[in-house]
C-alpha cells in the first residue's frame, strides 16, 4: 500500500474520533474507549509498522533541524509523523474531554478547545489548561462549586 493510500485511510479514522468527541456527552464511556484507546492504538500500530519498515532506510536523524527536515523528505516517515500527530492530538482531545467531565466543566465550553487541539494541538492543550486553571481558582477563591 502506498503512503498516499494509507494517508487517505488514516485521516477519516481520526475525523471519526473527533466527531465522537464532539458528541461525547451522549455516550461518555463508549466515546472514551474509542478516542482514548481504540483509535490511538490503531494509529500507534500503523506508526510502529511504518517506522520499523522505513526508519532505517531514511536519511536524516533527530540531532539537528536539517536532519529532522531530511527525515521528513521520506514519504513513509512523513506519513508516520502525520499519524503520530493524529494519534496524540486525538488522545489529548479525549483526555481534555474526560478531564472536563471530572472537573464538572460543561462540554459546550470544551468544544472550542477541542477545535484548537484538532487544528493546532499544543495551542489547544494550552488554552484548555488555562480554562481548567480558571475554574479551579474560582472554586477555591469563592468557595463556590463549579
Amino acid at each position, binding site marked *: 500500500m502506498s503512503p498516499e493510500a494509507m494517508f487517505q485511510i488514516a485521516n477519516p479514522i481520526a475525523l471519526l474520533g473527533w466527531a465522537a468527541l464532539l458528541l461525547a456527552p451522549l455516550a461518555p464511556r463508549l466515546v472514551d474507549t474509542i478516542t482514548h484507546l481504540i483509535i490511538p492504538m490503531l494509529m500507534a500500530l500503523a506508526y510502529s509498522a511504518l517506522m520499523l*519498515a522505513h*526508519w532505517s532506510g531514511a536519511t536524516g536523524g533527530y540531532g539537528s533541524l536539517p536532519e529532522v527536515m531530511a527525515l521528513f523528505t521520506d514519504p513513509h516517515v512523513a506519513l508516520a509523523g502525520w499519524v503520530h500527530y493524529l494519534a496524540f492530538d486525538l488522545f489529548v482531545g479525549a483526555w481534555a474531554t474526560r478531564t472536563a467531565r471530572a472537573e464538572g466543566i460543561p462540554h459546550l465550553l470544551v468544544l472550542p478547545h477541542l477545535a484548537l487541539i484538532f487544528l493546532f494541538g499544543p495551542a489547544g492543550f494550552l488554552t484548555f489548561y488555562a480554562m481548567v486553571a480558571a475554574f479551579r481558582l474560582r472554586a477555591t477563591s469563592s468557595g463556590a462549586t463549579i
Partner: protein
Amino acid sequence: MTAQSLPQSLPRTVKSRLWADAPAFTGLALFITLTALPLIGAAMIDTRTFLDAPVWQKPLQFHLALATYVLTLAFFARFLPQGMTSRRWRIYAAVVSFCVLAELVWVGSAASYATASHFNVDDPVMGAIYGLMGVFAVILTSASLVMGVAIWRNPATGLAPALHLSVALGLILTFVLTLIAAGTLSSMLGHHIGTPVTNAALPILGWSREVGDLRVGHFFATHALHVLPIVGLIASRAFSADVARGTVLAAALAYVALVLLTMLQAFQGQPFLPWLG
C-alpha cells in the same frame, strides 16, 4: 491437582493458574504476542528481503516461538514444588525474561536494517552482540532444565508417574538437545549445508527444500517439552503404570535419535522430508 482432574478443569482454571503459578512468564508471553502486532503491520508494508526471505519473517517467527516456549514454562510451573516462588526463583525468572526480550529486540533491530542477526560476524559490534546473544540464549533455555529438574524431584506433583516423568524428561531434553542442536548451528557460518538455487522453503518454518537445514534439528530439540508430555499423557491413560513408564522412556530415546538424525541428514546436505512443501 491430580492427573485425572486436569483435563476436565482446564478451560475454567487454566488462565488463572497461569497467572498464579508464573506471573512473569505469563505476562511475558502476552507481551511478546501483542508486540508481534506492529511487526505484522511492518511485514505488510515492507518489501525488503534478506537472504531471499521477507525481513520481518524471522522476528515474527521468534515472537511466536518464544511466546510458545514461555507460555509452556508458565503452564508447567504448576508442577513445581511448593516454595519455588522464593525470591531466588523470581530473580531467575526475571533474568530469563530479560534474555528473551533481548533476543527479540536484537532480531527485530537487525531485521529493521535488513541485516543479519545470527551469523553476523563481519561487523565487529554486531559480532560481539551475536556472541552475547548466544549466552542469553543458553540462559533462557536453561529455564527448561531448572524447571525439569525441580519437577523431577517434586514428589507431590499430583501427576501419574509416567506423565510426571514425561514432563520432567521433556523439559530437561529441551535444554540438552537444544544446546547440542543450536550450539552446532552457531558453530557454522549459516543454517544451510549446501547452496540453495531456487530458495524453495517450507511455509512458516522456512526450512530449505533443496539443501540441508540445521534449523530442523533445533526445532525438534526445542519442542521436546511439548512432544514427550503428550506421549506421557496418552501412555498414562492407555497403559498400566509400568508399560506407560517404559513407553515414555522409549519415546524419549526415539526423540533423541530423531533430533540427531535430522542433524545428520542436514549435514549430508539433505532437506528434511523432501516431499513436504
